[in-house]
């Protein structure tokens, strides 16, 4: 059950001794005047690398890889790198080019465009609470850490994203090293290294920043904390969502509204992937290449069209939807699940997704009134956390300081 938030419960750190930072965090809380749902972590100064998780009251402690424990210094370096276009081969894109804070770290496009203009086959996903995701990207059981996932945008060639190659990777490190801010901070973030600015350090810093993006300050969260009321439509939508009439909770039932989460002492579960009947090319069950989901990795028929259920937190901000951005609005998404699969009547993608033989057995179609559907959408919009889109801890550090150096 959801518990009421208290400062004491919110102050959990990865280490064993939360008391050391408790006073400072309490000061920060006082300064916030209780308006935020949880404390800012920036109470720990640059000289104190000990990371203090500041978590929503019902969120478990995120996992940190043994080889990359969280520190404030790494998070700081990672934040700047995340927004730094110097990190791409041609200096045109940063991580933030496809993960905009204002859109809950998505890009608003159907599918992403890489630094060289090449089209990506998949829709950019939100990074809010990404540290809790068991697997990364849309359909890849092999990518289980942010450090591993980052190899894809950095070095991937099919398609090119940031376009880091063997030919330019030393030059990119030189660009970073020339920035005095980095020269100083990398040393602090990666102490004891002969050469602090390396690709290994860059990956670890960005992953640390991404893990720090934990937030649950939606109206729904405030409602659970007893601090806000949901409208009638939203409450009705919530009951439909959580109940057996709309059954959304089967795949979107976790604290981040998906069905594969990982955290400290989480039960060991095989991450789940689902075919929701978006396609059925020629009645064969096939999805269009290269968007055939886990099938692309395994070649097993039962994996055709299987993708991850995304977190629905901030879903109002993350349109368009699905792995390929092929559903434009929340209303259409609800229609898709009501029908139990999408019918594409003609063209190269023709087929009735509802009859896809590899479809998840839970996607059977729903009987919903137009009011039901509107209420479901109203509830989904109550999951919007505007605070995370403006939180200075996650904001572009170049926006106010040195925009020209981007």
């Amino acid at each position, binding site marked *: 059950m959801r518990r009421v938030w208290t400062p004491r419960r919110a102050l959990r750190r990865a280490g064993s001794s939360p008391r050391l930072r408790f006073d400072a965090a309490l000061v920060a809380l006082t300064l916030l005047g209780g308006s935020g749902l949880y404390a800012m972590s920036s109470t720990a100064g640059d000289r104190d690398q000990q990371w203090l998780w500041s978590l929503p009251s019902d969120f478990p402690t995120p996992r940190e890889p043994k080889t990359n424990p969280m520190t404030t210094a790494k998070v700081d370096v990672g934040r700047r790198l995340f927004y730094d276009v110097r990190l791409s081969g041609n200096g045109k894109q940063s991580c933030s080019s496809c993960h905009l804070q204002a859109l809950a770290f998505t890009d608003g496009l159907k599918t992403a465009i890489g630094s060289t203009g090449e089209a990506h086959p998949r829709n950019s996903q939100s990074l809010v609470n990404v540290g809790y995701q068991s697997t990364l990207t849309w359909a890849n059981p*092999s990518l289980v*850490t942010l450090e*591993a996932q980052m190899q894809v945008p950095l070095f991937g060639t099919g398609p090119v994203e940031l376009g880091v190659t063997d030919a330019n990777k030393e030059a990119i490190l030189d660009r970073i090293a020339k920035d005095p801010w980095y020269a100083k901070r990398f040393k602090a973030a990666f102490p004891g290294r002969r050469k602090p600015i390396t690709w290994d350090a860059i990956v670890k810093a960005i992953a640390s920043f991404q893990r720090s993006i934990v937030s649950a300050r939606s109206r729904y969260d405030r409602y659970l904390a007893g601090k806000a009321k949901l409208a009638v439509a939203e409450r009705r939508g919530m009951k439909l969502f959580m109940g057996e009439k709309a059954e959304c909770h089967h795949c979107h039932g976790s604290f981040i509204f998906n069905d594969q989460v990982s955290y400290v002492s989480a039960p060991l579960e095989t991450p789940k992937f689902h075919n929701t009947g978006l396609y059925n090319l020629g009645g064969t069950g096939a999805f269009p290449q290269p*968007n055939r989901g886990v099938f692309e990795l395994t*070649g097993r028929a039962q994996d055709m069209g299987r993708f991850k259920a995304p977190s629905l937190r901030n879903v109002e901000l993350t349109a368009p939807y699905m792995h390929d951005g092929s559903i434009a609005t929340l209303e259409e998404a609800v229609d898709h699940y009501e029908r139990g699969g999408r019918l594409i009547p003609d*063209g*190269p993608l023709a087929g009735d997704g509802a009859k896809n033989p590899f479809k998840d057995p839970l996607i059977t179609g729903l009987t919903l009134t137009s009011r039901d559907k509107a209420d479901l959408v109203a509830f989904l919009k109550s999951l919007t956390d505007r605070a995370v889109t403006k939180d200075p801890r996650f904001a572009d550090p170049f926006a106010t300081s040195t925009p020209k150096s981007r």
Partner: protein
Amino acid sequence: MFRPAITLLPFAVAAAAVPAAATAHPATTNAAPKTAKSAKTQTVKLRFAAVAGNAPVSCEAPIAGLGTTSQTADLKDLRFFVSDVKLLRKDGTGVSVKLKANKDYRVTGAKGSVTLIDLENGKGACAEEGTPGTNASVIGTVPRGTYVGVRWSLGVPFALNHTNTAGAAGPLGLSAMAWSWQFGRKFVKVEFADPAAAGTQPTSGMKMQMAMPGTTPAPTPAAGAWAAPTYFVHVGSTGCTGNPATGNAVSCLAANRSTVKLAKFNPTTQQIAVDVAQLVAGNDLAKSPDMMPGCMSGPADPECGSEFKALGISWSADGKATGKATGSQSVFRAID
């Protein structure tokens, strides 16, 4: 009694060992003084040579007569990993080659060892992803003896494969050999370019199927004669699953590591030919029946059948292949 194919006298062993060490590791030669131990071992240098049929190939000259439709192609890349190398005694037993340390092309350590054979020089058609350096040899030592053949695994050992490219040592840090979609490495990277499309297309040559009818631009047609400007042969493990609790890759459905055996091979006098014509003999380089031209090891990739057969890896069109070595390959052979 048998008549050994190669008999290395102690004198010849020492003579072979010193120049090889001096060439590859000028800095470490002095640190390894001759001892009784070195007299018990001999240096091995397995030399690979890129060919198409009987002709040498390079990045700088088009190769004629490739594939089922006899296409002319530029060689765009030719690199592969070799591990678990064993020289074979006359009785068939294998003796492990202990790799010599080298920071650029070899990884040696407790978790395993591997050599990158790099037969591209970063020139000509290889300029895009290639590197100026090359490495044609596996260099190490074996106990002194008589060897008549060689066997090796084509790929990176599992314990080394599923690691971060960023920060990895030696050839495992190459981004070109990263196999990020399976969090591993490309074991084999051979690529051909359509000479008529040179410089006109984006890197991957990937073509998109439309996500929704009429809403996305149609695929960009290649400027050259082929369906796509580049034909890829990328071999690596597929169907890999990580463990979210530990952050490690725990298993792959298809390992896709070939075991190559040359039963008759003289390591001192012969080289190992890497025949790119044999590799693509069963496919049409100008066609791309699926979205990705060539074989990217996808378990249902229609072009992988003949290439995996040529490399000696089990494959079937239904995606149920185990990716085990078949023991029979046609790409590598001993040449004088």
